């Protein structure tokens, strides 16, 4: 699957962007040239060699704060995606096999969760469970899990009702074996698409919440928080909000691009797409050696 995604230019671009962001999240705090919390007398300064992106209202280095803030955003969005995955996929697959009562209840729960506005709910939960990104992201993860529930259930249904699975069942195959042999391979690609997309959603949610000052205790830097504080000093640094905004946009774009690439290369359609590209490439290939051969000697 990874090799197939990398075969597409969009896939390579998406993986490139996301790897840079992940590297930032891992190394950001160590790469930061200054203490992201260290104040100085030099406030709201413009970009310079000492401070690449200038300083903020308390004289802290903005570049260091951006680097240090990447971890919160990345961890938050990954948390949303993983919680949604676990909470959504398992009951999604089981709803096909565990009988009508279980199916009815999980469907109604999924419907209920879809009806709740997750951003507002996350704000409410932080008021209840304490002001922290993990609490907020846990809530958002649970509330977006119906996406995974629906995706996993739909692809499981398609497999479970197909003739070759029924044939295998008649031949005495166990449910566990069928799940491993047939269901898993069909469910995984759409779930991967949903996962990549949810990471993007998670990023927007983390940034929105930290923009609103929820889930983060000052002076901890976050991209959304930097964006929010920059807006208060626009007359001094009109360009300042552009950098965190671009970072947030690039990350979300990368996630969505990855989701697109996975969708394009998965299943029969994906195999056909890659084959057609290979065919086109082969048709072009024989033309190349001739001029190359002509020039080389």
């Amino acid at each position, binding site marked *: 699957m990874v090799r197939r995604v990398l075969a597409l230019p969009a896939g390579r671009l998406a993986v490139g962007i996301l790897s840079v962001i992940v590297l930032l999240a891992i190394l950001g705090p160590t790469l930061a040239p200054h203490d992201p*919390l*260290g*104040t100085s*007398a030099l*406030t709201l300064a413009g970009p310079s060699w000492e401070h690449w992106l200038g300083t903020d*209202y*308390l*004289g802290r280095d903005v570049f260091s704060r951006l680097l240090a803030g990447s971890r919160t955003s990345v961890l938050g969005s990954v948390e949303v995606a993983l919680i949604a995955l676990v909470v959504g996929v398992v009951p999604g697959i089981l709803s096909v096999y565990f009988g009508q009562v279980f199916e009815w209840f999980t469907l109604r729960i999924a419907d209920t969760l879809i009806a709740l506005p997750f951003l507002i709910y996350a704000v409410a939960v932080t*008021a209840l469970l304490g*002001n922290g990104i993990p609490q907020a992201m846990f809530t958002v993860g649970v509330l977006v899990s119906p996406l995974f529930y629906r995706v996993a259930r739909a692809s499981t249904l398609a497999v479970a009702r197909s003739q070759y699975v029924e044939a295998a069942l008649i031949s005495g195959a166990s449910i566990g074996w069928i799940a491993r042999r047939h269901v898993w391979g069909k469910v995984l690609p759409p779930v991967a698409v949903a996962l990549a997309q949810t990471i993007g959603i998670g990023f927007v949610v983390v940034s929105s919440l930290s923009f609103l*000052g929820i889930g983060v*205790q*000052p*002076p901890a830097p976050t991209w959304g928080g930097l964006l929010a504080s920059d*807006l*208060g*000093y*626009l*007359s*001094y640094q009109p360009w300042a909000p552009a950098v965190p905004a671009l970072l947030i946009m690039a990350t979300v774009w990368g996630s969505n691009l990855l989701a697109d690439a996975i969708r*394009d290369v998965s299943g*029969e*359609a994906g195999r*056909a*797409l890659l*084959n*057609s590209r290979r065919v086109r490439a082969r048709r072009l290939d024989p033309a190349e050696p001739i001029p190359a051969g002509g020039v080389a000697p």
Partner: protein
Amino acid sequence: MTSARHLPSARRTRRGAVLGALVTLTALVLSACGSGSGAGTAAAGGGGGGKSATLKWASSFFPTHWDPVVSGSGAQFRILALPYASLTRTDAKGNAVPDLAESWAYNATGDEITFHLRPKLTFSDGTPVNAAAVKDAIDRAKSQKNSALFGDLTSIKSVTTGGDLDVVVHLTQVDHQIPLLLGERVLQIASPKAAADPAKLDQNPVGAGPFVVTQLIPGTKVLLKKNPNYWDAKNIHIDNVELVSAPDKATVVSGLQTGVYNFADLAPSQAKAAKAAGLDVFVQPGFNASNISLNINKAPFDNPKVVDAVRYATNRQEFVDKLTFGYGKPTNQPFPPGYIAYDEKSANLYPYDPAKAKQLLEQAGIKPGQIKLDLVISKEDPAAEIVQSQLAAIGITVTIKINKNWATPFFAKDLTFSLYGTTGRDSAVQTLTAHFGPDGPLNLSSPYEPEGFEAAIAKVRQTPLDAPDYPQILQAATRVGLQSRALVFTYSSPNLFAKNKAISALPANPAHIDWTGVTIGD
């Protein structure tokens, strides 16, 4: 093969969707511009017509309570002064001058004062403004269950009426501060008929002030029109007031620029933008002072050495430099330097000395990092981050906690460590008792008061305001108050406002917003 053909078409729809989104975005931007310019012309029309002058005020102090007894002496009083008049008001020098009371006189001993009301005045519901109405207002402030003012009225024993227009206030002690006290901050007078139901009054203000409320949307917006029966109506040149709760501080300037508002209080960080937008940015004189509030009834501040360490660790200049954009002043007292009660002799009390602060912690046997504190504040505030970094420098770890419901634990004195500030009081004695008195709303360590404070305050009360030694006696009381371990004062932020140039200059009454004589021209 069919699916291979299907893919490019999917891509085409995606391209179509992007195009559609772009078109929608452009349309939105265009329509936003359209409505913006529309508001601009509407504002120009309203101002230039000359027929009705409308004040469009965006305030970040939108009152939650409209019963003056419940609202208290905070910054909201400036807005409540639109519908309510008080017994006295202050002039540009901060002296008490007549408002609803035409004149007043103390008895020979100074423990009784009689206010003579202006005749033939009515509240906006038609009830007469008489001695009984004033008595009702004072009694309510003293006894109503949710009164925010009773602590300020300890000098008042009882109130009687002498005829229809004379209010006689009997005092528990000699107190020459009463005319200043019963001004806009403490005694805005509501119609007794409306005040019979305080809960209703709280959402439907009825007073005898310069304006009458026509519509009130709690927490959001209030519309007022000029009160033709106000005693000084001939000097009020504003016909309508539209007051809204200010949105985010970063958007106030744009609102002023487009004419959505023509008057607003301004964060110092926005002054540059407001000036660039061609607005009139001005500082109204005032008595603002911000502080760090400590609760000495709780650890670690029950140890005087820790309190002293915090005092020496506070670098006031950093607050001024980073928060006030050139408009503020450092102060170590509950008012800015230059105020009558400001004690020059205490100006160098507890100067910034982090080495000494560390030494004090060491003497107390406290290791760096051993003290971990929650700094509880009501909303995001860069001042908290400054306190955090200054205390981190002496080895105290501070975690900032934002609690939207901050007021409840703060005024219940349940917090250990917080930030607060004052916009001052007309009576300097009230400022001092509010900070250092045993029941002062700004004293987080109630019922603690510094030793000798009560006696020093009593002495100020006994001194007539025009006595030659009044400033010395007042400053001596400040000196005693500053021994309080409950407060570390940091800086004085300015009363910064921005207005459309069509609005004439406001009277420079310190800490007040007075619309008398103000015109809105073209």
